[in-house]
């Protein structure tokens, strides 16, 4: 009896239930689309692409797989639309690969030779300039370079050494600006001579955004290896290469799309951090007025845990939320007064919005 009783007890100790629900999100999407790049996880899940249909207000995940029947094999750090293609900077596997910007079909193999830890790109004529870290940049800042890709031959034509960990790039008037993530300066390369000059900065930089007069705003950030209190947005007059800093404490040092402009470039939305009511720090979106050259007193939104990128589209501010690298993230849209409009489930670690025009 005793044994029976104890056996029943033991069995009763496990009331386990497990139910899985398959959630298949494959849906058609219409025209007028933008893409959300989901980074994935570095060592396991690779990137995926979500497609945002602003006409039907839908977000559809796994677009690359749907079109190409296979999943991506890289973590996409940045995507760039140029001359009919979308170029993607893939890490682990390191490659620059591209799809047709209308069909999203990949028909050619990516470039892997001479591409090590690609970060960002910008094109000029027949060339695509890709910032590459070249290896463990945190251990050796001399490893980094700019890969100059000939878009006709689809080969790296030249590796232009540039120490300091170039991240964001911009081209203005025959000059390539490179935001250096491991040096307090912005590199400026003459595209004809490929000779660098430098603009000294008070903090390291991560990304640029170009205004409608071809001047640049550069994020000035504090990192563990390059601490600085002089953070915020730097304005660079590209005629004179003069530098002016508009301070913002807590500006994000994440390697995601941290700045986005509205359609008429009157406002910049900047990923930052702020204290919550309970005095814990979490993500926020600050607003920079380009006319007054100042940050608005109130952030657009506060308390966004896991904020992982900002964008602007269709008169809405897009924020990407990703607290972990093993679970799907969210796209959350806000009106320009900060009212939450809608949330959409994305792939893992959404980090940027790419409009294809």
């Amino acid at each position: 009896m005793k044994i029976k009783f104890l056996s029943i007890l033991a069995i009763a100790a496990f009331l386990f239930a497990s139910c899985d629900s398959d959630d298949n999100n494959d849906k058609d999407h219409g025209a007028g689309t933008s893409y959300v790049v989901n980074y994935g996880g570095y060592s396991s899940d690779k990137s995926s692409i979500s497609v945002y249909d602003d006409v039907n207000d839908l977000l559809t995940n796994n677009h690359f797989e749907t079109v190409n029947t296979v999943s991506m094999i890289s973590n996409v750090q940045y995507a760039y639309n140029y001359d009919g293609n979308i170029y993607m900077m893939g890490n682990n596997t390191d490659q620059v690969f591209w799809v047709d910007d209308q069909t999203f079909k990949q028909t050619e193999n990516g470039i892997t030779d001479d591409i090590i830890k690609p970060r960002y790109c910008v094109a000029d004529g027949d060339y695509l300039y890709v910032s590459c870290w070249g290896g463990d940049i945190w251990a050796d800042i001399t490893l980094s370079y700019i890969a100059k890709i000939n878009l006709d031959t689809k080969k790296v034509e030249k590796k232009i050494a540039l120490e300091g960990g170039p991240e964001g790039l911009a081209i203005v008037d025959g000059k390539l600006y490179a935001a250096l993530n491991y040096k307090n300066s912005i590199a400026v390369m003459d595209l004809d001579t490929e000779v660098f000059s430098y603009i000294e900065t008070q903090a390291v930089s991560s990304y640029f955004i170009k205004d409608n007069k071809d001047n640049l705003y550069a994020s000035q950030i504090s990192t563990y290896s390059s601490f600085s209190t002089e953070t915020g947005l730097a304005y660079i007059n590209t005629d004179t290469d003069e530098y002016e800093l508009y301070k913002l404490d807590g500006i994000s040092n994440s390697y995601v799309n941290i700045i986005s402009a509205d359609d008429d470039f009157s406002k910049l939305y900047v990923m930052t951090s702020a204290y919550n009511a309970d005095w814990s720090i979490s993500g926020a979106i600050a607003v920079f007025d380009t006319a007054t050259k100042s940050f608005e007193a109130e952030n657009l939104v506060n308390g966004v845990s896991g904020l992982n990128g900002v964008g602007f589209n269709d008169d809405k501010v897009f924020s990407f939320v990703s607290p972990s690298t093993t679970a799907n993230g969210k796209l959350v849209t806000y009106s320009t007064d900060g009212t939450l409009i809608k949330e959409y489930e994305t792939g893992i670690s959404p980090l940027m919005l790419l409009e294809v025009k």
Partner: protein
Amino acid sequence: MFGTVSYIIQVNRPIPYISFAIKMIMKKILICILLFFALSPAYSNISCAFYTASDSISINAQKTNILTVFDTIQLNEVVSYGKLKKYQSGAKIEMIPDRKFDAYRDGSLEQLLSRTLPIVLKSTAGTLSTIRLRGTSPNHTSVNFGGINLNSLTLGQSNMSNVPMYLFDEVGVQFGSASTVNGSGSIGGAIHLGLRNNWTKGVKAEARISHGSFGEELYGTKIYLGNGKFESVTRAYFYKKDNNFKFTNTAVHDFEKSIFQIEDKQRNASVENKGLIQELNYKFSEEETLIFNLWLEKDWHQIQQNMQQNYYKPEQKEPYEDKHIRLWTSYKNNKKLFKYELSGGYVYDIGIDNGNTDDTIQTQRIIGEASVEHELNKKISYKIGVKASRISPTVYTYSDDLEYEDRLDFYASYFHKINRKLTATINLRQGLVTDFSVPFTPTFGFKYLVFSKENQALNINGNVAKSYRVPTFNDRFWGDQGNPDLNPEKGMNYELGFKWNYSNNETFGHIQLNTYFLNVDEWILWVNNNGWEPQNVQKVESKGLELMTAWNYLFFGLKTESGFNYSYTSTERKKSRTISDAVGRQLEYVPLHSGNFYSTINYNNTDFSVDFKYTDKQYTNEEDNNILSSYFLLNFSVGHQFKLNNKNKFKIKGMLNNILDTDYQSTFGYAMPGINYRLSLTYNIN
């Protein structure tokens, strides 16, 4: 027994409250002891030897020897490391039998555990392997060598591929929470690496050479010198593996030729490990011993690249090197009523990533421990102790202000053989850590002999244990992301087990069934909060069943040993502070079902063995994609021992692994080897 209290004191800080704290803790422990005494049934007059007592109660007087063998931890000349079972009567502690242990001496702890016990590990091809004991994370299982927890203080876990079995004599695994005995981190369980004191008279020696597929080589030697009182044991090994196995690479995307799968070869995943253990032991008398163990280990491997990187970046090499110095010494005196043990240790760990010696990741520990055991009578004993350690990290991202951290653990254990059938134990532990609050961890366990007949016996054991884990140094101090305000992870473990032993003239064996419920709260994960930082994120519950059975019998007149292990592990994330679709779903890298079977037939000093292992499908992320398929691995081995004369033995063994050439993954995106072999020769003198 009573637990341990840990305490960490910053050196240059006046700590007038310590003595008060200690007094309070000791008071708490004493009250618990007194309460237990008061609540216990009157002390019975039945006298029995206390350890393994209920195990060793005779099924049949004539078969006492057999029974003590198949139901115990071997306490004879025990490993320096503790009477694991005596003060944990309700815990499930398994020692891997010698014959099985010997089969995996050429490999790592990963191979031994995954093929002999119901334990799942997440592995790459011999370069990195982490344990998931009862669904918990790798830093929830401590790996112990003497009083040293091998787990990295910066990362919190051990690489099971880097623990060489050749250096050890035995391995014990405690399933379920063991923080009261092992301190921080033993939420899912604990592994004990053991060395046996042989008290050699004269000289004994062993040489071993092993070669296998993919450039695998092991060279090992053991030399025993002694006069019965003094003993020197030297164990050394060198292991290497090129790991250049072939596999089907499904991560190749040739869009121009529409090829998405090719036959590929693993590159740049080689391993080269070497180690030495030097024992110097002295036996003053049977009751008074001194041991000294020094373990030097240098492990080097190339971090295995995932399939796509392996194909597209064949030149990519990422070497990683670990160096360790582990010293443990212990003086034991059992001559008097109060038996005592004084121990001390030193640990030096350094990791070098990709040859970068500038970014130092190094820790040093000095450990001291003292315990006293007192047998009130044959039925009752207790033990109290204190363990202190000072940890000095030198990590390039930590603040210079962090010179060291002190930890102090007070523990007490109580053993009571209440009557002939029932044994109960209590363990209490209080840890104190510099600037960190550690929970009080009590454990209560019992073992009950339900019946004992002529040739069979049934025991029941139960255990309720609290456990905890102090966040790693990286969690608390890494750059500006570390969070010193993290809470410790806390666990509760409830265990109920049955063990039926059977023996007749030709057959003996056991069937063991354990059920458990384990929860871990405040589980720490690194999450993105405008930059990555550790937070107490989730609560996880694990409940399961483990069936273990092993039988020795005659099969067509041949001595045969067979065993079967099955594990049902239902581990679910119950709460998460981050967005997750996987709340209420099976946790990542924890198969719901897993099991293994083995059988060995002996004929004229020749062993023929077959074993297989099944692992259920596994989630790899919080979404329903990238799920690892279930897999089944079949292995075969044959070994023969030649006795050249009374003093010289020669053993040859061949293993064929993954005979079915199963294409599988243990870590998503990483290739594993197909069919492979290993051939070993061992020569023993004396």
